[in-house]
């Protein structure tokens, strides 16, 4: 509960600060540095694990099925959203869903690729929705990580995390499911990461 409140509180304080100042104060540049710092720390955490060799040896080819499941499941359900959101086509919804919690890249790609065909206004709106949807996905997974791991299993938590299974959500995955899930979480994150530019560009151009 304390962790959940810290997650929501951190985001809310940031929103308030940005709104009051009226400028992002270079937050995106600082975020990039903080993300590198996070990756370095995650690396140190992995490297200092005394069972690292056993973890690497535990990787199995069948574990590659999980990223495919994440992609197919997310895209099928995202397509269903177009039945409710009449303003957006099935391909628009697929483009948003194929961010897989990679909010920065997916929103930027959508804004750039959609603009020539639908104009700045509509492209910006869809990019904003992509930003929020993928932030929500990451935050919901952070908040519900213990419940997902407990009731649906460790692999469900990795799948829910999408691309963030290899960085932001990795500490939560380790805490909820154990360090033995690290190889699968990283392989999953890398594959999903590589798929984001492909799927977002594809669905934006259809």
């Amino acid at each position, binding site marked *: 509960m304390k962790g959940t409140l810290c997650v929501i509180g951190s*985001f809310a304080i940031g929103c308030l600060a940005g709104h009051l100042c009226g400028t992002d104060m270079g937050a995106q540049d600082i975020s990039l540095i903080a993300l590198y710092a996070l990756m370095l720390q995650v690396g140190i955490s992995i490297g200092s694990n005394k069972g690292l060799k056993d973890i690497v040896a535990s990787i199995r080819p069948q574990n590659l099925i999980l990223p495919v499941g994440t992609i197919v499941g997310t895209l099928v359900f995202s397509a269903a959203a177009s039945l409710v959101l009449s303003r957006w086509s099935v391909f628009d919804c697929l483009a948003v869903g194929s961010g897989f919690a990679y*909010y920065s890249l997916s929103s930027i790609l959508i804004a750039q690729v959609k603009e020539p065909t639908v104009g700045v206004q509509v492209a910006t709106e869809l990019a904003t929705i992509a930003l929020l949807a993928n932030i929500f996905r990451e935050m919901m997974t952070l908040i519900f990580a213990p419940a997902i791991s407990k009731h649906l299993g460790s692999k469900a938590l990795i799948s829910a995390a999408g691309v963030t299974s290899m960085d932001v959500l990795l500490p939560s995955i380790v805490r909820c499911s154990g360090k033995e899930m690290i190889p699968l979480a990283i392989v999953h994150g890398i594959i999903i990461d590589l798929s984001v530019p492909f799927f977002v560009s594809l669905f934006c151009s259809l």
Partner: protein
Amino acid sequence: MFLGVGIGYALRKVRGVKVVGTTIQLTIYALLCLLGVTVGANSYLVSHLGDFGGQALLLAVLGLGGSLAATLALSKCFGKGGRK
């Protein structure tokens, strides 16, 4: 991250390296705060936040639900494959 793995491996016998677990959590909170600053500073986004937020929430819930449903389906097809 691979640089970190190398550093972590070199320092694996140093007792203080365990503090990295706490610093990771603090960095995540800082990243979420910075993300909030980016969202809060965008006046267009803020003024339409309710409308866009509702649509985004639906897409997020469906995307998350889809990946969970696929994992459960995989566990049915491949036995232990979908669950620990």
